[in-house]
């Protein structure tokens, strides 16, 4: 994504600045600009080259009402921003990711917050051999921790409350690297810890994936995850 641009992308950046692109093409460029610094650099270079030609247009005196209108909007903006500080952020549902996609990156993030999490669970009576921090995919905030005191028994511990919409439930899943499909570990109550035996599963292993998806209140109708991932993480040997 950060490699040198090809000619087509240089021209695309130029066309974006000129303004010849359709709305869909403009939106596609704007989406790429957020994570492609080379493309952004090309766009900015074109902006600098062309900006002198804004002088080809005649200045037009704005109507007297325009500044007062801007000022009112500015004040309204300011009011709404100071109000929003006291309002708790609305819970936003994550959109469904293709099922296992992104899990590797999330595993990395989980590893990064491990240090923090470890200090919180150090009062546990037994030292877990494995640990999983389950993060919300979009906010990357930790929602649950899985502790395994041995390879057959795990404990899922909530780190906060979580609202489940009416008619829906959280279903807990796991999948080791070489498994073909995830296996359901059953429904879990938001905010309630749960202890599970994995007797019918192979021993827990490093990098094993765990996640909670939002399903119908009777569980996934297919036996495989169907709803959006709410929390996801990978087991780390500790």
């Amino acid at each position: 994504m950060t490699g040198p641009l090809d000619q087509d992308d240089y021209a695309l950046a130029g066309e974006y600045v000129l303004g010849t692109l359709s709305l869909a093409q403009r939106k596609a460029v704007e989406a790429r600009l957020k994570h492609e610094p080379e493309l952004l650099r090309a766009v900015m270079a074109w902006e600098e080259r062309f900006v002198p030609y804004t002088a080809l247009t005649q200045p037009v005196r704005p109507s007297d009402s325009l500044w007062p209108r801007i000022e009112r909007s500015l004040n309204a903006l300011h009011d709404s921003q100071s109000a929003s500080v006291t309002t708790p952020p609305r819970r936003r549902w994550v959109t469904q990711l293709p099922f296992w996609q992104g899990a590797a990156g999330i595993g990395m993030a989980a590893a990064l917050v491990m240090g923090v999490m470890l200090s919180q669970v150090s009062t546990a009576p037994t030292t877990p051999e494995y640990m999983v921090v389950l993060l919300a995919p979009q906010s990357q905030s930790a929602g649950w921790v899985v502790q395994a005191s041995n390879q057959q028994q795990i404990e899922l511990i909530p780190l906060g409350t979580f609202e489940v919409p009416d008619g829906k439930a959280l279903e807990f899943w796991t999948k080791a690297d070489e498994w073909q499909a995830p296996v359901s570990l059953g429904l879990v109550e938001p905010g309630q810890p749960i202890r599970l035996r994995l007797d019918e599963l192979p021993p827990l292993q490093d990098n094993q994936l765990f996640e909670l998806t939002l399903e119908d209140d009777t569980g996934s109708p297919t036996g495989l995850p169907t709803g959006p991932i709410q929390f996801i993480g990978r087991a780390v040997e500790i």
Partner: protein
Amino acid sequence: MTDESLEFDHASVLAKCARGEHDALHQLYVYEGARLLGVVLRIVKDRGMAEDIVHDACLNIWQRANSFDPAKGSARTWIFSVARHQALNAIRYRDREITFDSNDPTDIDLDEHFQHSSVVEDAFDWQTGQRMDDCLHQLETERRNCVLHAYVDGLSHAEISAHTGAPLGTVKAWIKRSLLRLRECMA
């Protein structure tokens, strides 16, 4: 292009906006408002819509001022790009069902050497005293016209084609080739 723009410190005004100083945005509006409205009006060609866009652009500049990085470009360029892109998005949105903008790749494979029957004259008095002038000067007149019709008038490929009489594929090819030549020339 006059030296006026050099007297006004756009970067420090943006820094003040980022700190929440309403007066700074007002100073910017007083100094650049008429030029911004001129640029936007030329693109959207509707006075009410142009003022709406300048209103939105000012709020946008205010809210995004803290993301402006003087190491990466000039503040004045950044301010004008915010307003121009707001105007361009607005007209492309307005005209999305009217403007036919085919992505058919065969469009662009048409002969780039389309010639008007008569001598083409400059559509713009375009010399601004910038280095880019020399590069624009090296383009054929009709191609330079296409580039400036896009940048100044906000015309789409199809509109430039209608305006100049050159086929759509030719316009697309001319603009793309012109951009690559301009880039080479400015390098």
